[in-house]
């Protein structure tokens, strides 16, 4: 049994989302998992099933000791040391830097462990990686506009554990479960002869840009009520949320049911709902863990392609991704309540797929699983087929390079999506491979000249600069370019001769990767041609049958 410490110094939602990985490790029977979290988010960690120990850093207390003038800062250091010593005084088989930010990375770097998973710093303060998956998470996905991979799957790959489908995820209490079941069933059957659907609506997030506008929430509730669906407002027990919920409830003359509960009780409530409508919140992750379908309304800074709902029964409503920059500056929303209502009805099986309409400027996604894990397929609304095809092709490339798998299902999906601009897309991608390869060969050539003793370092730097510019490409070639940049930046300082060899090795590695981009494009193109030819034959046969029948 491996003794594991998972460091997660992010917020409630990230702590819940780490439960998938923890669950997979615990279910495998090979891991004894402890976690380190900030004290203020311990409440979520306490609900995760299968965790041996929860260690905490009381950040608020340490910050108070630091910033308040009445305390000497020596105390702040003492407190920090006291909290950290609970993990630094132990030897770990593996330490997982799950939160992947600077504090957790420094802590990972100072811990004693046989294996560190995720980012750590070298003594030169460079990023140290133990696998390409870690590089993908930290230096590649972060730079791409539209992430081809979900964080949860990258973490599973980093640890080397299969995703477990067995449930052992969140703790609940029998008392809460019974009360939630009883109360929600009462609402369900309040009218004689009826068994109504119950939809939970999570009202707010901590990030304003992610919130569904109040006016839209009111319209959604009115619309759902008109269809005999019961709504429940879900709020955290804070004064601010109570006040905002009361304002919405005023509109309905206080008739709405508002559920104000802590995370532990909330799990029981969510289990008993038919579905949940939520922006990007911790509750979205909670509903994934208890497998309650949710409609995730992805707005503003919510990065659904990296951290969206992963339940295949859920749906994600997003502004068309080309119009999103996934930042908190993206506050312009023309979100329509009809789109939320239609998606919710589809989710609950109260509306057929064909009759579901999503308005202009929005796309409805469904999570699906492939050999890389969870991704999102645009099922309704406005779809930019070029971007969607490119995202799937990027997955195909990652699968080919990091899993060394030739999975045709990616190609099939692309053929389903390919629109009128498919040829233009593939031609752009191929041109990008040619351009990048040309710049790569230029860099290799000038590096060889340095190795031969020629004074070519200026040329090499120039050609490397040209090559690195491809990190900004919006084509698949940006992925091998970003990998190269990460490898070069994380290389340890060494003697010139060794350094040249190391750079050369990385350039040749990129050459292989570009070859794989080309192979991906060729497979897609060949399959597309075959698909077109098959379609022509099918049409001819069907015409002939039709004529003969006549």
């Amino acid at each position, binding site marked *: 049994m491996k003794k594991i410490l998972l460091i997660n110094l992010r917020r409630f939602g990230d702590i819940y989302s780490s439960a998938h990985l923890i669950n997979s490790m615990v279910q495998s029977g090979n891991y004894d998992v402890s976690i380190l979290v900030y004290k203020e988010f311990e409440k979520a960690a306490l609900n995760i099933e299968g965790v041996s120990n929860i260690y905490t850093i009381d950040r608020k207390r340490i910050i108070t000791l630091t910033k308040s003038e*009445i305390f000497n800062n*020596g*105390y*702040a250091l*003492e407190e920090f*040391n006291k909290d950290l010593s609970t993990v630094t005084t132990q030897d770990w088989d593996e330490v997982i830097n799950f939160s992947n930010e600077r504090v957790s990375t*420094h802590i990972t*770097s*100072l811990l004693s462990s046989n294996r560190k998973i995720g980012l750590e710093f070298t003594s030169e303060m460079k990023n140290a990686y133990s696998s390409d998956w870690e590089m993908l998470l930290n230096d590649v996905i972060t730079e791409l506009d539209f992430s081809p991979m979900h964080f949860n799957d990258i973490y599973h790959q980093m640890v080397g554990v299969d995703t477990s489908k067995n449930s052992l995820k969140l703790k609940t209490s029998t008392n809460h479960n019974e009360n939630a079941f009883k109360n929600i069933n009462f609402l369900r059957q309040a009218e004689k002869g009826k068994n109504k659907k119950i939809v939970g609506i999570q009202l707010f997030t901590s990030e304003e840009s992610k919130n569904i506008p109040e006016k839209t929430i009111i319209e959604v509730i009115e619309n759902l009520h008109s269809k005999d669906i019961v709504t429940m407002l879900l709020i955290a027990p804070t004064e601010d949320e109570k006040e905002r919920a009361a304002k919405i409830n005023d509109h309905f003359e206080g008739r709405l049911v508002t559920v104000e509960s802590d995370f532990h009780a909330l799990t029981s409530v969510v289990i008993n709902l038919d579905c949940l409508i939520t922006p990007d919140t911790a509750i979205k992750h909670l509903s994934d863990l208890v497998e309650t379908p949710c409609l995730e309304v992805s707005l503003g800074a919510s990065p659904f392609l990296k951290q969206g709902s992963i339940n295949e029964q859920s749906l994600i409503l997003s502004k068309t991704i080309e119009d999103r920059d996934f930042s908190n500056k993206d506050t312009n929303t023309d979100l329509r309540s009809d789109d939320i209502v239609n998606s919710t009805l589809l989710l609950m099986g109260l509306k057929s797929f064909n009759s579901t309409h999503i308005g202009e400027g929005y796309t409805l996604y469904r999570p699906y699983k492939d050999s890389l894990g969870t991704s999102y397929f645009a099922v309704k609304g406005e779809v930019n087929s070029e971007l969607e095809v490119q995202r799937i092709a990027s997955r195909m490339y990652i699968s080919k390079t990091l899993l060394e798998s030739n999975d045709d299902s990616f190609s099939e999906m692309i053929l389903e999506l390919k629109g009128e601009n498919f040829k233009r897309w593939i031609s752009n991608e191929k041109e990008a491979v040619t351009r990048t390869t040309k710049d790569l060969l230029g860099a290799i050539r000038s590096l060889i000249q340095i190795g031969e003793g020629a004074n070519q370092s200026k040329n090499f730097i120039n050609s490397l600069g040209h090559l690195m510019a491809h990190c900004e490409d919006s084509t698949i070639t940006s992925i091998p370019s970003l990998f190269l940049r990460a490898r070069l930046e994380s290389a340890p300082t060494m003697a010139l001769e060794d350094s040249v060899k190391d750079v050369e090795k990385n350039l040749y590695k990129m050459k292989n990767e570009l070859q794989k981009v080309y192979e991906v494009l060729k497979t897609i193109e060949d399959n597309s041609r075959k698909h077109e030819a098959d379609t022509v034959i099918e049409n001819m046969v069907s015409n002939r049958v039709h004529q003969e029948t006549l």
Partner: protein
Amino acid sequence: MSDHSNKENLNSSNITKDNSMEELSLYRYEVKVSKTEHKVPVVNDVHLHSIYNPIKEAAALIEKNKSLIKVKNELLVLGLGFGYHIEEAILLLEKEWGQNYKIIVIEPNEKVYSDYTKYSLINNNNIHIYAAEEIVELYKKKEFVDYLLNKPGIISHPASFNLYESYFKNLLSYKAPRTVSSFSSYITSSRVKECVNNLNPDLDITSAIDEKLYTNNTSVKDDDHFLMAFQEMVKGSLQLEGRE
């Protein structure tokens, strides 16, 4: 319970280590008896309790702070006198919180405290009294700092507060030394001591860590990661609060 036992030498003549302690000089001290037969300390002609009915006066003070005691089970009481208001506070705290409460009392005057121990009937493990402590020494006590971090409710005993106004004001507006060189009086762990040893003693913690670890290209060791984790956590939180 009290930390005063080693302070027996703090008499009227030597409690003058900072300005606020000057007002503690006992030009005149006596113990009178109220109409209700309760003992009342009189310091420099100031009666610390009502000379008519100290219990009634104490009950009124606690009644005024009733709403505070309903939400706070930890109190910091400024001024002990002979503790009549403490007895009243205990009654209310026990009513609201059972035995789950704590009171810390600050009494600047050693003589008042020693007579309190002589006359008072209070024997309660939930009460802790700091008597005749210099403010700077008080803030060196970890248990006192921990108590303040829990944000206790503050009740001041008006007669004591007025008598030692400067002492209490200095207590409440105390500014701890900020330089790294001052940390040695406040830290006990060898790890933290080692980490701090390598920092510029004349700078505050943030500037010292910045100077040592963020401006040089020196090789980073485990202790440095400890300091950098601390620094990033503090800076990150201040940024979240919009302070930076």
